[in-house]
């Protein structure tokens, strides 16, 4: 039984959040036009903690849809650069296990390779994460297949973990900052029975998944089948090239850069915004477009998430949240495409003399 585990009544939880609101921007799930979204919380009572899934993951508060990278001042033929310096401290509340994994994936992209992204680092350092064990299986989610949920089984990279126990939450802390914030509350320690209940909930939930994906040899299978007919067929028959899949994906990191110049030409904001490999011009250079076909672009999305990501970052780029297929206007499902490749592995069949 972990030491830093307590019980907090839901009423007390709400009043604690109201207190925290004095020092942090609170971000959490709220209901909006029949869907749930992560949003800045003005009223703690607006939080909907028993949500199933949100339209966008919490990435939009760490890697913003559009943000200034720096301002460039031009004078006397020289340049002065002002980087973004001040970002608000924020607390992300109610982050499901899949979305927590997505943030840790983005950490690998922006912080743990050869260069650290300035803006991402700044926001990430000023973000506390309060994860929440999921209680709802959606028809489109498959986190249990990707090893990213439905319960959080990590012990670092976030601050708090909540488990809903009816009238109260089991709250566990996983960082020094979290411990400090819990200390003044003087909460009762959680006992063994609560952990037994948590384990029971977890096991029961695991058995309820509708969607699954077998990831055994998946990387190799997909890379060996880049000319599989499923890419062409799905792209031609169903993909509209709308970019929804990559916009709602909580691990997509691609961005474009745009300069915005002041009227007197002395000041220039360099801005970046989410970009998508599904967009026609994404891989265009002078004289060539390396993914001019929808087939190539759709294959890029699926093989990036489920195959090439592993060589790049040592994990899958898909955390099994199911958002891409839910928000795709024609409900293109990457697990179905992967399964079709697994079923008719042309490379293998050719080698075995069947095709």
């Amino acid at each position, binding site marked *: 039984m972990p030491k830093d585990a307590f019980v907090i009544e839901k009423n007390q939880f709400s009043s604690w959040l109201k207190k925290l609101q004095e020092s942090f921007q609170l971000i959490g799930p709220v209901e909006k036009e029949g869907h749930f979204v992560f949003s800045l919380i003005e009223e703690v009572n607006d939080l909907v903690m028993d949500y199933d899934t949100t339209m966008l993951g919490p990435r939009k508060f760490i890697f913003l849809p559009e943000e200034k990278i720096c301002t460039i001042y031009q004078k006397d033929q*020289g340049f002065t650069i002002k980087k973004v310096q001040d970002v608000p401290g924020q607390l992300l509340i109610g982050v499901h296990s899949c979305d927590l994994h997505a943030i840790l994936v983005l950490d690998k992209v922006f912080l743990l390779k050869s260069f650290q992204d300035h803006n991402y680092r700044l926001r990430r350092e000023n973000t506390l994460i309060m994860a929440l064990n999921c209680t709802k299986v959606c028809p489109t989610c498959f986190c249990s297949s990707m090893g990213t949920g439905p319960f959080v089984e990590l012990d670092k990279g976030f601050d708090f973990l909540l488990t809903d126990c009816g009238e109260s939450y089991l709250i566990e802390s996983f960082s020094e900052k979290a411990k400090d914030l819990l200390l003044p509350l003087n909460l009762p320690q959680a006992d063994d029975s609560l952990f037994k209940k948590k384990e029971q909930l977890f096991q029961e939930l695991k058995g309820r998944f509708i969607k699954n994906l077998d990831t055994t040899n998946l990387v190799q299978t997909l890379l060996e089948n880049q000319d599989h007919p499923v890419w062409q067929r799905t792209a031609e028959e169903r993909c509209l090239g709308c970019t929804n899949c990559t916009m709602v994906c909580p691990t997509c990191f691609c961005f474009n850069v*745009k300069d915005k110049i002041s009227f007197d030409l002395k000041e220039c904001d360099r801005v970046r915004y989410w970009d998508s490999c599904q967009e026609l011009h994404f891989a265009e250079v002078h004289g*060539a477009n390396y993914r001019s076909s929808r087939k190539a672009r759709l294959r890029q999305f699926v093989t990036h998430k489920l195959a090439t990501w592993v060589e790049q970052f040592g994990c899958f780029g898909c955390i099994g949240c199911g958002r891409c297929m839910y928000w795709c206007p024609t409900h293109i499902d990457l697990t179905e495409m992967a399964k079709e490749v697994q079923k008719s592995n042309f490379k293998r069949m050719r080698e075995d003399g069947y095709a």
Partner: protein
Amino acid sequence: MVMPDTLAFKTARIVDIFQETAEIRSYFLSLEEEEDFQFTPGQFNMLGLPGVEEAAISFSSLAQPGNNFFMHTIACVGNVTSLIERMEIDGKLLIRGPFGYGWPTEEIVGKDILLVAGGVGLAPLRPFLLYCLEKRNQINNLYLVYGARTPEEMVFQKDLMDWQKKEEISTIYCVDKLPEYSSLLPNVGLVTHFLEDLQIDLSRALVCMCGPEIMMRFVARKLLLQGYSEKDLYLAMERRMRCGTGHCGHCQIGAKFVCQDGPIFQYPDIKPFADTML
């Protein structure tokens, strides 16, 4: 280990400009704040100006120990490059770099080296060629096969003439169309026609190529048919780049980020992935 930040801008001043062809100019630059600027052949900078963002441009000169000069050779094709084309001596550019992995400078000892370039693709190869000339006594044979559409579209004409006269390097220049007059006396035909009959021992061959991807496709295939081994071929890949630091995602080829894992690749590392012309 503290990792470098993505926004390490430097200012460079244009010291001299040289018109290479109608659309290509070379810029001699020096860094404003730093005395010493080191980079390896094949690496690149992100060159930028407020209002037009940035473009990836390779070094076309060899770094000199203890000084801060470098050269870029730029074809005017879009926003950044056409703004730079309108700049004059003493104009200032914002740069970030050097980025990427360059040519295999560690691999040259005892090799028969073949450099194949097309058009402005000679620019990223030039520092490696100069490096090979510096280390000439460590190398066995050294060849340059350089093609352009017309002699007027050939860059570094003065170098080309120098190299043509040198014993240290054997050169073959070729063009698509035969001109009435050219001091370089180029052959007529594609670079792929001039890859046979070279004195290259396949067991110690090292090939470095840079040019349009379609050219590299045919050069690589031809050489493989001639018995060269895949691992001895190195290619310079070009993709759209918005950051240079492995984050914006534009330059991805399969699992590779051209900006960080390249732009120079060993053929077997890049060939398996989709969406190239190789």
